[in-house]
């Protein structure tokens, strides 16, 4: 279980097992999507599998995640998603009306994201070998000329912007799954981000890094960027917007909202000259209405992510573990 959590263990699997096994430079980039040259075009290409429980939750479903997740991974290369594949792995005995509702959600989400589901596959596994429905989507899209968005491009001085409040998706899914009453006001933020990214690129093609902080949350994304670029990242602990009910739920559960998954947010590293304009463009877009500057890229502490507290002290934001284990002795 632990190896899919978007934390230290996933990173170790990738670094120690998959990357050496596949052995090619494209994969070595470790970004959400690969950018490939094919027939003179620059294509972004990505795949992701979806195993979320429950299948339906406040604000969305596994179908929405399957579409938005891959669309967003492509968007993080600056690409507008064009075509998706979609594969179902169904557990024998799964209620067909449920499958139908998921398919419907996929269709609706695809329309909203402006992407075409072009191919698909269905497999059925024996009862007990699956968990109702697993989905896999892959997608391709074109990367506009002059755009080069990669985690390695983060540079000291870059302004770090998040597109909206964080933590809602993870808390919504958790409270739904565990039947915890954190209030109906916590709703998943799942959304396609292609349009928002296009609006940002319209301001400047020179966005350095984009990342959708899904599993492992904001902290995981920032750590991946700090590691890949070898720069330090400092964020203001109170600059990151966290919805009040999300903060309350996290406090109760002993979770840090910076480590909770999002499905409709992005974090952007923007050269300082363009930061104000990009922020303004984001706020003009429905998916970026809550955008905020949360920090900067710094030359100090390369590879480390640090949150500055209101007291002026710092808190190290390490790559998350699968479980948030207490350190208190």
């Amino acid at each position, binding site marked *: 279980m632990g190896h899919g959590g978007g934390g230290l263990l996933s990173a170790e699997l990738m670094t120690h097992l998959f990357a050496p096994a596949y052995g090619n430079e494209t994969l070595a980039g470790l970004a959400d999507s690969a950018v490939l040259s094919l027939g003179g075009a620059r294509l972004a290409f990505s795949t992701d599998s979806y195993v979320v429980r429950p299948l339906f939750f406040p604000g969305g479903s596994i179908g929405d995640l399957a579409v938005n997740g891959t669309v967003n991974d492509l968007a993080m290369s600056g690409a507008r998603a064009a075509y998706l594949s979609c594969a179902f792995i169904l557990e024998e005995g799964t209620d067909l009306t449920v499958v139908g509702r998921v398919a419907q959600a996929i269709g609706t989400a695809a329309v909203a994201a402006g992407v075409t589901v072009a191919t698909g596959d269905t497999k059925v596994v024996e009862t007990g070998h699956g968990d109702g429905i697993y989905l896999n989507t892959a997608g391709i899209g074109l990367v506009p000329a002059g755009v080069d968005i990669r985690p390695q491009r983060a540079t000291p001085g870059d302004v770090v912007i998040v597109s909206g409040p964080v933590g809602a998706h993870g808390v919504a899914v958790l409270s739904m799954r565990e039947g915890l009453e954190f209030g109906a006001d916590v709703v998943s933020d799942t959304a396609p981000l292609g349009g928002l990214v296009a609006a940002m690129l319209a301001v400047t093609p020179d966005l350095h890094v984009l990342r959708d902080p899904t599993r492992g949350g904001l902290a995981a994304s920032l750590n991946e960027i700090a590691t890949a670029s070898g720069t330090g990242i400092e964020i203001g602990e109170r600059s990151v917007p966290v919805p009040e009910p999300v903060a309350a739920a996290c406090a*109760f*559960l002993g979770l840090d909202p910076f480590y909770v998954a999002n499905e409709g947010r992005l974090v952007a590293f923007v050269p300082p000259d363009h930061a104000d304009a990009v922020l303004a463009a984001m706020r003009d877009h429905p998916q970026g209405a809550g955008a905020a500057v949360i920090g900067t890229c710094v030359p100090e502490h390369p590879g480390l992510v640090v949150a500055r507290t209101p007291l*002026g002290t710092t808190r190290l934001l390490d790559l998350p573990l699968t479980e948030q284990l207490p350190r*208190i*002795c």
Partner: protein
Amino acid sequence: MTSGTVSRVRRRVTVRGTVQGVGFRPFVHRLASGLALSGFVRNGAQGVVAEVEGTPEAVARFCELLRERPPPLADVREVAYEDVPAGAGAGEGFLIETTDTGTDTDSGPGGGPLIPPDTAACADCLRELADPADRRHRHPFVTCTYCGPRFTIATALPYDRASTTMAAFPLCRRCAAEYADPADRRFHAQPVACPDCGPTVRLTVGGRQEAAGGQALARARRLLARGAIVAVKGLGGYHLACDATDGRAVAALRARKERGGKPFAVMCADLATAERLAHVSAAERAVLTGRRAPVVLLRRREGAAWIDAQVCPGSPDVGVMLPYTPLHRLLFGLPGDPPGPRVLVMTSGNRSGEPIVTDDAEALTALAGIADAWLWHDRAVEGPCDDSVVRVRPDDGSEVVLRRSRGYVPEPVGLPFPVVPALAVGGDLKNALCLGAGDSAWFSPHIGDMGALETVRSFERAAARLSALTGVTPGLLAADRHPGYHSARWARRRAAVTGQPLRLVQHHHAHVAAVLAENGVSGTDPVIGVAFDGTGYGEDGAVWGGEVLLARGTDFRRFAHLRYVPLPGGNAAVANPCRTALAHLRAAGLPWDPALPCAAACAPGELRLLERQLDRGAACVPTSSMGRLFDAVASLTGVCHRAGYEAQAAIELEAAAARVWGREGGAYAFGTGRGAGAGTFGAAGPGPGPMPGPMPGPGPNPPYPPGESGPYLAYAPGSTDSVPGPGVVLDPGPVLAAIVGDLRRGVPVPVIAARFHRAVAVAVAAVCRAARAETGADTAALSGGVFGNALLDQECAALLAADGFTVLRHRRVPPGDGGLALGQLALTARAEP
């Protein structure tokens, strides 16, 4: 030159240990001169080197006295002799060579001379301080060969004035004369200074330097008397000081430091003041007034209400120290000075969670929101060093260091076996690292919570500095197995850069190894290790903390542990003992009676959420923590429901028990059973390889199946029943049920608290007997932060000793995570025989 006759011999003597900066060369000079020996003495890279020449009798006597009567601050670890040809080179008379030649640089790692710890001002210096006729009257930096700063001002080896932060203060003519005179108390006292040539003390208020020298001190005292918070630069960094009897000042300091209810240490003007505040035994007095001058935890006097309740709310103890520098003395005022506060809160000058501030410019910014004024000086602090905290055991008068820092570092801990040069990075909270080589282990000063970047930087500097001062370059790294520890992650990053091998050690195994190493036990034969603390990462991915391990060599077997209970929300449960109490009740099958204090402490919504969370095991971690069991009982009895600082609930529960301790002899009984997963040998393993194995997770539904613990077997006292098979599971359920019963019967809370403390001790003794019956091991070692609890420590030791066990406890190494690094070192760096 060749005046030597047949009857003259010459001997070269090399003395190792803490022999520089302690007046060793003048001592050798006096010794040699008194015996009419000729020759020389000098500081070398290995220690002190002397050549003496004279009659065979006189030379022999010299060597005897060298061992028998070293100066007070010296710690002679080894004296080596070598006969050399008489009359070779040196003239008549005995010389102190002051240029350190470095000709004897053949010392191996760790063989070099050791800088002594910082030492409280000596009686002679204090006399001069108060003597209007003395040229150092009221000089805040008066010091001599026998006292003053050492470790905190050393910049390099060998320890000489040029290698201290006093290098910035050229000696005046008179100081230079004293420094050069072998007959003077200040001969080669590196920090020597006087009002003409020494550092200056200054007072800064509102960004302006308002006063200097005696006026600065007088004004600071006046400000303190008026309720101000003053940042005071001491030996190892800044303190924040305020009048401890001024409720408003203490409350302001608490609020500005965002410190919650955590007790503050105080500095009393003198011993008499300390004795009005707290009970001081003879052994405690000796530690309090000794040259290490730590904070001593003393039992508060019930009637000492004049010290503001804000200082140490809820604690039965008050941490007291006495003025240990001349500057502190002057701050309280000499006889006849305008009076000021007699008891000052003296807490580390830092922002919450950060290391102690040492830099003057940084002090002005980092403490800007906290201090009203800054009393500082221009002698730089090279090595940050917090105050040490010790407790004196009432049973045997021995000292247990709870925080090992000023006055103790860098004194090495002797090891029972040689180790290869290694760096153990310690734990994550209360971090202290430990460097080892040969048969020595050097702890760094207290570093703090590794969750802050500043602390990690401070950690790096401390590691580099300790390396430089000991000459040890670590060849391997040791860290805790906890994958989320910042200390372990630092070690991983370091290992990746340097290629040093990294070895990971299970937390409680390290605790046990630390207490064994400190007591000189090599662990060849199996030893029963009792490791009780709040949290440590277990081999099975659960949170351990109530462990009885069989330790042998570098292996251990988990012989017994507390029954797993789901800890709802990890850190959230730690901060809310009432939730831990409710989780424990539920695990024990006891209903959440709304009349129980822990249930009453929660709003209905919190109860509902918690119940659901425990039902589902959402964000729950299984734990066998003894610290959490103390939390649970503290809340169950209404003592503490929300913890504002680490171990608050346990401290307050101990305070309750202390009220009736000695008058209440009852004890509850734990249940016992067998558990799975408790019987495999684990060992300190290798660090991250090319591909880490799968991490065993606790799984989605952490609580044990109800049947796993099986029928309860009560160990009768003295029983030697063998317990075969998997490890023993100690079930707190029956204890909790009995407490609920006592609460319903109206039994006073202190009585319940005492019965609980004794229950834990009785269970420890029973488990140790079972372990002895199974393995023959008859040594029991106690470690882990829970043994900072004086009552438990005392009771466990007494019961075990009465049962014929050899009991090993911590003394100079903290039982908590501040001592962890020593165990990590002992388990990973043992040299091949």
